[in-house]
C-alpha cells in the first residue's frame, strides 16, 4: 500500500489571546481522505485550532500548509476549506435550496451547474422534500443535514465540523455518526471534526488527536490511543480506566497496601518513583485462573445492567476508588454475581499500562 498523502500540515502553530495561550506549538499532519478528530475537554484549544484552519483566527506563530501552500493568513473566503458550524448558522431568510446554492453563487458558476450540483447534494443528504422550506421549519437533524450539504456542495479540500452532533439527542446522534461516515466515504473529502465526546471520535475517526490546555498529547488511530494512551490524562479521558496508585518497581507497581501489579514499566520511570498502574474494565476477568499475573479480591458494591454487558463496581484493597469491571452478558449468566458478593478479579500483565503519577 502506498504511503497516504499529507493534505494539511499544521506546523508548530500557536495562538495567544493576550496572555492566554489557547494553542501551544501544535504540529499535526492530516492525510488525504481521512476522517480526523480533534478531541479534548472544553478549553483545550480544539475550537481555536479549528477556527485557524477555517481562517477566522490567524496563528500567532507557525504555518498551516494545505497541499504544501501556507494558508495561515488567507482569508476564509479564499481557502478551499469549509466549516460546518456548531449552531449550523443557516441563513434564516433563505430556503434550504438558497442556503445550499449560496456558496456556489459566490464562485460565480453558471446557474445550470449550480442547479445540478445543488440537486445532487440535496439528494445525497435526503433533503429534496424540504428544498423550499425555511430553516425554522426544519427539525434539528434536518438542519444539520442542510448545514452539511451547504458545506459539501462546495467540494472543499477539507471539511471542518465543529461539534456537529452536539445539538442532537442520543439516538439520532448514533444514526448521524454512521451517516457522516458514509457521506465522507461517498464524497471522498477529508473531514476534520472537533468534539469533546470521546466515544464519538472513537466511532468515527480514522485518526484522532487528543488536546489538553492547548497542547497536543497524542495523535494516532483510536485503537492505538485506546490501547496505548500516551499518559495518564489520555488514559482517563478516552474510555474508562481503573487506576492503582503506587511506586515503580522492577516489574510493575507496588500498591499502597503492598500488593504487586505486574506490568511493563516505561523506560522513563525510575524505580521507586510515584506511578499509577491501570487496566481497562473489559480486560478484567471475574474468578481468574491461578496463573493470572495480577489478582485481587473485592466486594461487589453495585451492579449496572447495560444489556450487552454487566458493569460491576468492586471495592478492592488496591485503591480507594472502586474498580469498574465489565462482564459480558453470557459470562454473567454462567456465573451470576449480586451486590455484596465477594469476588476474585484478575488481569494479565500485558493489559497493564503504567504512567507517571
Amino acid at each position, binding site marked *: 500500500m502506498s504511503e497516504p498523502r499529507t493534505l494539511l500540515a499544521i506546523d508548530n502553530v500557536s495562538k495567544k489571546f493576550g496572555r492566554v495561550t489557547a494553542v501551544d506549538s501544535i504540529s499535526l499532519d492530516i492525510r488525504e481522505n481521512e476522517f480526523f478528530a480533534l478531541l479534548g475537554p472544553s478549553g483545550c484549544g480544539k475550537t481555536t485550532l479549528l477556527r485557524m484552519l*477555517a*481562517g*477566522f483566527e490567524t496563528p500567532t506563530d507557525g504555518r498551516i500548509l494545505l497541499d504544501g501552500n501556507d494558508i495561515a493568513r488567507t*482569508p*476564509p*473566503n479564499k481557502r478551499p476549506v*469549509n*466549516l460546518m*458550524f456548531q*449552531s449550523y*448558522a*443557516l*441563513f*434564516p*431568510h433563505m430556503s434550504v435550496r438558497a442556503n445550499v446554492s*449560496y*456558496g456556489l453563487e*459566490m*464562485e460565480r458558476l453558471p446557474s445550470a451547474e449550480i442547479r445540478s450540483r445543488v440537486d445532487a447534494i440535496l439528494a445525497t443528504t435526503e433533503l429534496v422534500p*424540504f428544498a*423550499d*422550506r*425555511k430553516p*425554522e*421549519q426544519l427539525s434539528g437533524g434536518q438542519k444539520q443535514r442542510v448545514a452539511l450539504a*451547504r*458545506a459539501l456542495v*462546495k467540494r472543499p479540500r477539507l471539511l471542518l465540523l465543529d461539534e456537529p452532533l452536539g445539538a442532537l439527542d442520543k439516538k439520532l446522534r448514533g444514526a448521524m455518526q454512521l451517516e457522516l461516515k458514509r457521506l465522507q466515504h461517498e464524497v471522498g473529502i477529508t473531514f476534520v471534526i472537533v468534539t469533546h465526546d470521546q466515544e464519538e471520535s472513537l466511532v468515527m475517526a480514522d485518526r484522532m488527536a487528543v488536546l489538553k490546555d492547548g497542547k497536543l498529547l497524542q495523535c494516532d488511530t483510536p485503537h492505538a490511543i485506546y490501547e496505548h494512551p500516551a499518559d495518564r490524562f489520555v488514559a482517563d479521558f478516552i474510555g474508562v480506566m481503573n487506576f492503582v496508585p503506587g511506586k515503580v518497581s522492577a516489574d510493575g507497581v507496588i500498591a499502597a497496601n503492598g500488593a504487586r501489579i505486574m506490568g511493563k514499566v516505561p523506560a522513563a520511570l525510575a524505580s521507586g518513583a510515584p506511578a499509577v498502574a491501570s487496566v481497562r474494565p473489559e480486560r478484567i476477568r471475574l474468578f481468574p485462573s491461578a496463573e493470572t499475573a495480577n489478582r485481587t479480591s473485592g466486594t461487589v458494591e453495585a451492579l449496572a445492567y447495560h444489556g450487552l454487558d454487566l458493569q460491576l463496581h468492586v471495592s478492592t484493597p488496591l485503591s480507594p476508588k472502586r474498580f469498574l469491571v465489565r462482564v459480558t452478558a453470557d459470562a454473567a449468566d454462567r456465573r451470576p454475581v449480586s451486590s455484596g458478593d465477594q469476588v476474585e478479579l484478575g488481569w494479565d500483565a500485558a493489559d497493564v499500562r503504567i504512567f507517571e503519577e
Partner: protein
Amino acid sequence: MTRISRSSLLMAPALVWLTALMVVPCALVLALAFFRRGIYGGIDYTFTLENFGLVFDPLYAGIFLKSARIAGTATLIAVVIGYAAAYAIAAAPRRWQPVFLFFAVLPFWSNYLIRTYAWIVLLNREGLITQLLRWFGYTGEPPSMLYTEGAVIAGLVYNYLPFVILACYAPLSRLNPELAEASRDLGASAATTFRRVILPLTVPGIAAGAVFVFVLSIGNFVTPALLGGGRFQMIGNLVYDQFLTANDWPFGAALAMALIAIMLLVLMAQALAADRAAGRAAEVKADG
C-alpha cells in the same frame, strides 16, 4: 373574573386616554374641515368641500411635496448614519454596548427646542462652524448655512437619529455572528456578506426607524420654523399659520387631515409589508 373582562379592565385607562385626547380632538378637527371660514375669522357653520379642494391647489400641493422631499432626505440620511452607528455599537464588546446606547439617547434628556436652538448657535454666520473655519485659516465670506433647507434637514436628522439607532440596534444585536462567518466561509466577501445576509435580516429595524423619522419629520413645524428660512418651509408651518395667523381654522383642519392621511398611508404600507413577510412564512409553514 373571566380572562376577557380582566384584560378589558387593564386596557380601560389607555382606551379612555386615547379616546379623550386623540379620537375626540381628531374628530373635531375633521368636522371643522367641512365648514367655511367666517368673513372676519371664526367659523361659518355651512357644509363645504372646498377646503379639501384647496389642499390640491398647486401652491399647497407644492408645500406637501417639498415637505415629503425634506422628510424623505432626512430619513435617508438618518438611516444611513443611524444604521452605521447601531452596527458599530452591536459590534462593540458586550459590556460597552449599554454605555454607547446611553450616549446615543443622551440628547433626549434635554428639551427639543433647546436642542434645535443649539443648531442656530452652530450654524449662524458668526456661529461655531464659521469660527472653526476661521481658526483653520479661512478668510472668505462666512458660509450661509442657517435658514436653508439643509439646516432643516440637519436639525431633523439630529433630533430623530436616536430612534433609528435604537430601532436598528435591536435586530443587529440579536444577529448570530456565526451567520456572517458562515457567509465568509462559503466564499462571500465582506461586502457581499453585508448585502446578502446582514442587511436582509435587519430590514425590519431599518423600516421601523425610517417610518418613525419620516412621520415625525413630515409633520414637524418647530425645526423648519427655527432653522428654515421663509414662512412655509413645511406643511406643519402652514397648518400652524392657518390656525394662529391667518385664522382660517377650516382650511388648517383640512391641511392637518391631509397630513394625517399621508402618515396613515406610510404606516399602513409598512404594516402591510411586515404582514406580507410574516404571512409568507406562515403560508410555507402550513404547506409543509
